[in-house]
């Protein structure tokens, strides 16, 4: 690698060639402000359209200023990042952006986490000299995501996520000049677009242009209603990230505090989606073994590989893009949607509570879950199995608004029976975790032998697409893992073209899995945060007394008392679903 020497603000930097000025400056302690630039290191995600022009610097000998994010170093370059020309230009550009941005900070959902707001603070903007017309667009509310693109600053991060990373193609720049904005094709509603509600656009939006649909008001009302029994379930990835909202270090596990906070909020029962994750393993694992056994016996009709179906963004993705392959994914519902009917039909009935009087709330790292719980097939006579799904961020707001001093809360335990879970279910929250959990159970069910080494390290990591072969006592099981829908697309195309030789594939829509979900605290492009959340989940798993789903005593009791056997008749009725062809629903004019 050739090294290049250059001078930045009088300091000599020596960096490999093809390094941007932005990164070169960091090596000598100079932090050039950026707005549209975005990077998730080690995850192959980068956005540098060079559009905002906030990071401009002066390069000696160059006629105009250069965007630091997009200009490569050269030998002997002399760079000035904060002389008067640069400072004036940067400030003017920011003032221009602010002049076309609604001054709604007081009520904006993004206030406090807004990168435009903090940049205005950082640069000390106290007035906006360039007043004029502001661009106005129609506000678009979908089941999970609100687009308030008056606040869009054309950073194109969402577009990069939606097109390059997720290959969903719901969002792209439309219109020209002052009216240019990122929107679905023909500026139609997101709901009519092929959007999967993965929420990755929301997780990278620097402003309040893209936010989640907030259901916390509905939850507050339900909690205040004495006729309702309100049950809450919390997804595994939430406990590894919620603490960040309260100033705790990324990767801090706050399971106990979270349970205590939920109890203080007034939930009647604080349960764990992890319980339903164990249930998912029982159903999905059984389905895998059934397909595998039939396949090995030479049944030509059997579809392999089996694909996981826990992720609603992923389900939306294949319904839109690969509807002809919708018989390949497992029919098992996601843990959120397994929890719903178990809470209402099993737990509720046991307590003599009519399902209409039970409200099930889920706390999810995810925005697609909001859409998932509204799907018609997950309702009984119009009553949804899961009434409301809140994001990790919404829960944090709810806790803050309820005067709960989160950090001082003593740890509390989940309620039983739907609060007991195993280590296998905890790792559902990270890429590779579902398939690892499935392997722990499927191995024992298939081989009838005890699995001694439960850690399948070969399934862990953050590489985009991973392959591993797991030895089922002489039978090699080929596993594929993809996180991010663009990676999922590659795997699906291989299956469609007959190039794939996997037995089972795990897919999660979000980069990193649920820990990097669209409903998680904003990571602002710091991929270390995502890694720390993953290691927190593996830590929780390692500390659990039971680490295999089928050993969960309450799961065993559930089958004994209620369901009978995995993939049995009642299971099929309550815990399995079917998928739809949504390709035709796309691009339909209102």
């Amino acid at each position, binding site marked *: 690698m050739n090294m290049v020497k250059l001078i930045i603000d009088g300091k000599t930097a020596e960096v490999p060639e093809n390094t941007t000025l932005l990164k070169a400056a960091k090596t000598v302690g100079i932090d050039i402000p950026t707005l549209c630039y975005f990077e998730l290191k080690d995850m192959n995600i980068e956005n540098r359209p060079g559009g905002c022009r906030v990071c401009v610097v002066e390069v000696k000998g160059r006629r105009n200023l250069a965007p630091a994010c997009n*200009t490569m170093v050269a030998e002997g370059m002399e760079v000035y990042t904060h002389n008067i020309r640069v400072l004036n230009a940067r400030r003017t550009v920011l003032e221009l952006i602010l002049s076309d941005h609604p001054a709604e900070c007081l009520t904006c959902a993004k206030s406090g986490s807004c990168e435009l707001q903090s940049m205005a603070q950082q640069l000390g903007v106290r007035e906006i000299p360039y007043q004029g017309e502001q661009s106005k667009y129609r506000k678009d509310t979908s089941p999970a995501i609100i687009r308030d693109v008056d606040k869009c600053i*054309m950073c194109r991060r969402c577009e990069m996520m939606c097109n390059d990373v997720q290959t969903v193609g719901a969002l792209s720049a439309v219109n020209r000049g002052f009216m*240019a904005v990122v929107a679905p094709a023909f500026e139609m509603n997101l709901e009519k677009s092929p959007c999967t509600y993965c929420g990755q656009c929301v997780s990278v939006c620097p402003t309040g242009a893209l936010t989640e649909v907030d259901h916390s008001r509905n939850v507050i009302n339900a909690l205040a209603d004495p006729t309702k029994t309100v049950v809450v379930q919390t997804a595994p990835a939430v406990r590894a990230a919620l603490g960040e909202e309260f100033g705790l270090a990324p990767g801090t596990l706050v399971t106990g505090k979270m349970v205590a906070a939920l109890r203080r909020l007034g939930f009647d029962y604080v349960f764990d989606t992890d319980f339903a994750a164990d249930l998912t393993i029982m159903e999905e694992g059984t389905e895998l073994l059934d397909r595998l056994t039939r396949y090995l016996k030479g049944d030509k009709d059997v579809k392999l590989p089996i694909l996981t179906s826990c992720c609603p963004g992923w389900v939306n993705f294949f319904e839109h893009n690969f509807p002809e392959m919708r018989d390949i994914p497992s029919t098992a519902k996601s843990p959120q949607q397994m929890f719903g009917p178990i809470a209402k039909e099993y737990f509720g009935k046991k307590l003599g509570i009519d399902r209409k009087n039970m409200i099930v709330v889920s706390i999810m790292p995810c925005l697609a879950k909001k859409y998932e719980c509204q799907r018609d097939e997950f309702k009984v006579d119009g009553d949804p199995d899961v009434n409301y799904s809140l994001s990790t961020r919404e829960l944090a707001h709810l806790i803050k608004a309820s005067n709960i001093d989160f950090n001082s809360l003593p740890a509390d335990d989940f309620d039983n029976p739907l609060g007991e879970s195993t280590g296998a279910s905890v790792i559902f929250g990270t890429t590779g975790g579902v398939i690892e959990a499935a392997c722990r159970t499927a191995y024992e069910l298939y081989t009838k032998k005890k699995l001694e080494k439960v850690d399948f390290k070969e399934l862990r990591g953050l590489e985009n697409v991973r392959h591993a072969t797991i030895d089922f006592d002489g039978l090699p099981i080929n596993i594929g893992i993809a996180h991010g829908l663009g990676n999922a697309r590659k795997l699906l195309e291989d299956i469609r073209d007959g190039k794939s030789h996997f037995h089972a594939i795990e897919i999660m829509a979000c980069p990193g899995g649920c820990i990097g979900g669209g409903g998680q605290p904003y990571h602002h492009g710091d991929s270390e945060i995502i890694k720390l959340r993953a290691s927190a989940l593996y830590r929780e798993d390692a500390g659990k007394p039971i680490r295999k789903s089928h050993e969960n005593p309450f799961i065993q009791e559930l089958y004994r008392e209620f369901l009978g056997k995995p993939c049995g008749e009642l299971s099929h009725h309550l815990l399995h679903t079917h998928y739809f062809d949504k390709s035709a629903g796309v691009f339909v004019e209102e």
Partner: protein
Amino acid sequence: MAKQIRIALRNCGVIDPERIEDYIARDGYMALATVLTELTPEAVIEILKKSGLRGRGGGGFPAGLKWEITRKVQADQKYVVCNADEGDPGAFMDRSILEGDPHSVLEAMTINGYCTGASKGLIYIRAEYPLAVERLKTAMAQSREMGLLGENILGTGFNFDIDIRYGAGAFVCGEETALIHSMEGLRGEPTVKPPFPSVEGYLKKPTNVNNVETFANVPVILNKGWEWFASIGTERSKGTKVFALAGKINNVGLVEVPMGTTLREVIFEIGGGIQHGREFKAAQTGGPSGGCLTKKHLDTPIDYDNLIAAGSMMGSGGLIVMDEDDCMVAIAKFYLEFTVEESCGKCSPCRIGNKRLHEILGKITQGNGTMEDIDKLRNLGTVIKDTSLCGLGQSSPNPVLSTLDNFYDEYMEHVKDKKCRSKVCKSLMQYLIIADKCIGCTLCARNCPVNAISGERKQAHFIDQEKCIKCGACMEKCKFNAIIIN
């Protein structure tokens, strides 16, 4: 007209553009034959470099150097692109060449293919040029038939073919990276350079992009030699340039003059001077984002560098002449309107900054401008030029900045005295009836579209300034010169 030298336009109006024989009769395809049979690509590039030919699309990048860069990049596929997305209002030299001499462009593109190692050429042309498209298609069919395009050209084993791509008339698609993205089916917006198209262009392959006029020069240079070409023009700008004369000038249309010709020669000798014997005020060069030159620039030799030094640019060669009836503030606003409309919206200074510039100019022409606004214009204009992503934004404030430099007193009059000396800015005008001259014929009142004029028959009339929309209908109708503009 004697000062003209026609190189790029040598065949326009002389040959039948639909007959390849006519082109061949005037040395057409001779350069290609020589190149393919006698010269190495390096030798051709060397000739071009020595000739000093610079890009005629506006940037003025040395053509030979561009060809050399494209040649040196290793790739399995390269492309030659002809930029025929002529977008400057009033400029039509590219169209004239394509309509009048399409083979010259095809020949030059083929030579470029030979030099750079490209086997495929693409012409990106505005769909609004149907005749040019038709003539290109005819020309391409003829040259294929004669073995001058396609497989095994002139039996030399060299393969090169050309296709047409249509643009939808977005100004920014004349910027080469935006043009390439448009051809790729992507949104027509520029990307940061480097990588330059010569290294990474169409479909990520090395792509040599040249403008129509640049290509049209190439065969002549090869036929007549670089020494001949380099003997025309100035030190750093060789050859000729086609200008589209327009505005308040007697002879409008295309002229081709050696680089270094002065503005005075172009306007007064070739252009026949200002219409109606009025006084020359300014000339705007370089299309909508060029600057305005004044009397003091009349004797400056026109070339790439002098124009930039004067706060304008060569652009594609638009030259709009203004006389004393033109308000320079309104002119700046007019051009800004165009760039606001044509900005792609990708980078913030161009997207928002030009809009704000336009708004401030609107405020000034309406008589609401302040001294602070003048400062804002200058700061904004400077920052937009300094920070915009592509050539459009980097030049769009030129009309504002150059008029601020050269016609500062006019801005002052608008801001301080609330006056427009050219009587263009309607908000700053008042139509008044001189009572002594008015005989009360009522003609003005009857013709006023908004009933702003009142008065009894045979009595002096009166214009209600609140209602008046300053259309001028009353003044036009008055037979007694009783209506004046204040």
